[in-house]
């Protein structure tokens, strides 16, 4: 509420973050794992004097650059672009805590760009050793950038001791750091292999070369699967209590976790029984299925990883409704419409008579005509609820969720949302403001679509 809240009908603004983030990680993991693949396999091809393999690797490098340097880089910056629009307070906090983490990552981004282009455009012209070194410079730089961003994203889920010891390094090396680095590194190995299989299945006509690619990519893929599982286990173990509880309580997350586990097992089995034990299975269709499953797993994993942060955006630091917990006492005393920059501006614009010596008259709020109370309730909804809910239709629409609710239920959820669902942020406004929100929410309530018979013995 210190920043204007971007109202995105149907989706909610934070869902745009999710969309861009998922689109990015589909390629970002390949950017890391693919770099390792190119570095390692080029080294192998040079040492074994396998010119056909070298030729294939050059083709793959072009495919790699087109995907990662263009699409991967833009969507990566796009995440950062989007979070500032859809979650400005959390972005403000993160950027103040980790600006130099991002600055370090920038250094490795530039290293990646330069090394990738030199590796590809000077292929066949650089001395062998220099060419290999350049490839490894890319690979190491890409992995380090993975480590750097993981320190920041892990912090969002579990900042560890940072609230007590506000040090960059304490925040960076948070409890989630190692598990997520392991999981993401595993994901990088795995997805890289799946992209390689896809590219090779369509491009390589030589059966012997195809078998070589199958075999050599299978081991890192299997290792990647193991790292994903181990990292995922560590991720779960180091979840905050509320995150673990949210994982257990939300049925959609239950389904997604099962789905994620099933996909991982399926991919592992396919890898082991296919390219690892029986090379020669690889076909375009099989490769597409492989990659499709891998991308589905990554997408699912990202969604789950983000969803369990509720009721926070940054655990214990920024609530899901863009409020710092430390601000709650003041907000509850003075009100959102008073302390929020843009809500207060709204009151000043539309109801200037409610301002007394620059302060919002809380008692006067409930004296407004009904329509005005509803409007102010909608203002409060935008700042307090629209992070996670749309109003009438779309993502987690309240109109659907509150079907059949009684006025008492609506009042309860406005006064104590955290008692309705523990993963909802607590109400941070005044009592009068909760009444305004209640007025608005009641306009959304539809009757229950189910007509239950009256219990025997008459009405309760």
């Amino acid at each position, binding site marked *: 509420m210190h920043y204007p809240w971007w*109202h995105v009908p149907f989706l909610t603004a934070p869902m745009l973050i999710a969309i861009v983030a998922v689109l990015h990680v589909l390629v970002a993991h390949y950017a890391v794992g693919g770099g390792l693949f190119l570095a390692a396999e080029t080294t192998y091809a040079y040492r074994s004097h396998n010119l056909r393999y070298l030729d294939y690797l050059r083709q793959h490098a072009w495919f790699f650059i087109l995907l990662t340097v263009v699409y991967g880089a*833009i969507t990566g910056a796009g995440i950062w672009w989007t979070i500032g629009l859809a979650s400005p307070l959390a972005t403000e906090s993160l950027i*103040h805590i980790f600006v130099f983490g991002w600055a370090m990552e920038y250094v490795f981004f530039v290293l990646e760009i330069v090394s990738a282009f030199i590796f590809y455009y000077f292929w066949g012209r650089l001395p062998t050793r220099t060419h290999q070194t350049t490839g490894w410079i890319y690979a190491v730089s890409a992995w380090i950038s993975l480590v750097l961003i993981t320190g920041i994203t892990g912090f969002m889920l579990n900042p560890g001791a940072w609230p007590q010891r506000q040090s960059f390094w304490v925040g960076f090396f948070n409890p989630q750091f190692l598990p997520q680095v392991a999981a993401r590194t595993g994901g990088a190995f795995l997805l890289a292999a799946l992209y390689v299989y896809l590219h090779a299945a369509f491009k390589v006509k030589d059966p012997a070369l195809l078998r070589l690619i199958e075999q050599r990519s299978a081991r890192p893929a299997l290792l990647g699967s193991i790292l994903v599982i181990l990292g995922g286990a560590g991720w779960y173990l180091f979840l905050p209590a509320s995150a673990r509880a949210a994982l257990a309580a939300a049925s959609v997350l239950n389904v997604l976790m099962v789905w994620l586990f099933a996909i991982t097992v399926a991919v592992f089995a396919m890898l082991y029984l296919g390219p690892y034990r029986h090379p020669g299975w690889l076909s375009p269709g099989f490769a597409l299925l492989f990659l499709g499953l891998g991308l589905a797993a990554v997408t699912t994993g990202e969604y789950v990883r983000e969803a369990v942060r509720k009721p926070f955006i940054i655990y214990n630091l920024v609530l899901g409704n863009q409020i710092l917990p430390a601000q709650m006492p003041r907000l509850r005393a003075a009100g959102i419409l008073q302390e929020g920059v843009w809500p207060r501006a709204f009151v000043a614009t539309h109801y200037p008579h409610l301002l007394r010596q620059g302060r919002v008259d809380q008692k006067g709020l409930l004296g407004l005509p009904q329509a005005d109370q509803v409007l102010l309730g909608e203002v409060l909804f935008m700042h307090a609820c629209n992070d996670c809910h749309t109003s009438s239709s779309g993502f987690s629409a309240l109109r659907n969720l509150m079907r059949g609710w009684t006025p008492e239920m609506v009042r309860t959820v406005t006064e104590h949302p955290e008692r309705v669902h523990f993963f909802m942020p607590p109400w941070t406004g005044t009592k009068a403001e909760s009444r305004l929100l209640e007025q608005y929410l009641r306009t959304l309530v539809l009757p229950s679509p189910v007509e239950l018979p009256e219990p025997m013995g008459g009405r309760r």
Partner: protein
Amino acid sequence: MNPADLVAPASPLGFPAPYWFLVLLKVAGFTLHMGPMHLWTAGLLVALLLTRRPDAHARLLGERLIAQLPVVIALGINFGIVPLLFLQVAYYRVFYPATVLAAWSWFAVIPLLVLAYYGVYLCAGDLRQARSGGLRRLVGWVAAAAFLAIGLAFVNGMTLMTRLEAWPDLWRATSRAGAPLGTALNLSDPRLLPRGLMMLALALVTTAAYAVVDAGLFARGLPAAYRRWVAGFALRLATIGVVGFAIFGSWYAFATWSAEARGVMLGRLAPLTAATAAAPALPWLLIARQRRGPTPGAALATGLAQLGVLALNATSRQVVQNLELARFLDVAAEPVRTQWSPLVVFLLLLAGGMGVILWMVGRARSILRPVPH
């Protein structure tokens, strides 16, 4: 409504480094970003026009510019991260509100950039394969249009960041229950057109300087006649750019700056303003001296001179930005909690990274041989 009331409160976390350091990195990053940005904005347009000329030299220059753009764009995008990063740290109190008001145009940069970038790759690939590819050339024009749209989104966001007096009306006109719909555009800002045109004119100078650098340093294997032609063309292009910069820059400074900004920039900071205004003359002179054909040393000097021009421009823009914001907030008045160890690690990594880059570029250049067209 007092627009200052819409400024976000200061973060309790404070600045992670002294304000001057944050702004130094912002300006330095923007300087590096401007070069590639100029090339993909004006350079691509010029290149596409050149490829349609009957003159073989013109077509060759156009093809070379387009072929090099993928690398230029990749570097430029990465260079753009730094100014955006430090902009958000130092100016978050006005940056986030402004971009939220214009959220959709700001968000549109992402898909537009993907479209533009792949368009350039397609165009470059077509030219490299020496096929006519009318459709791919069309893609080049679409990419150019996308880059212009991106530029417009940026100018819109950046000018809106300092035009707080426009926020109340834009907010009321484009919001629902006080929540912006993200459809605001700062098109009524008198600075928008002259500032955009000034930057476009300067981009022509950058393109001219780049053409000379390319001919003098990277195209030495091509016929001397081609390199002489490039020098002549660059001079004409730079002349157009310098004249345009003078006209639109004057329009921007004298017609759109606030009285306060004008008072300072033409008062105690007049030397900076004068230097910024006159700076493009230096690369122009260097280009003129190479009319008979660029030489490696002079070409390198031209590139460095243009980099200096961009640095001065970025510095002046930063000063003006601060002056425009001074009416609403003191951007430097925040507590500083310097994060010394990560700052030092960053600087060390930056130095090390630069060393590695120089090594790679040096190795590549040492085996770089002239490639005939």
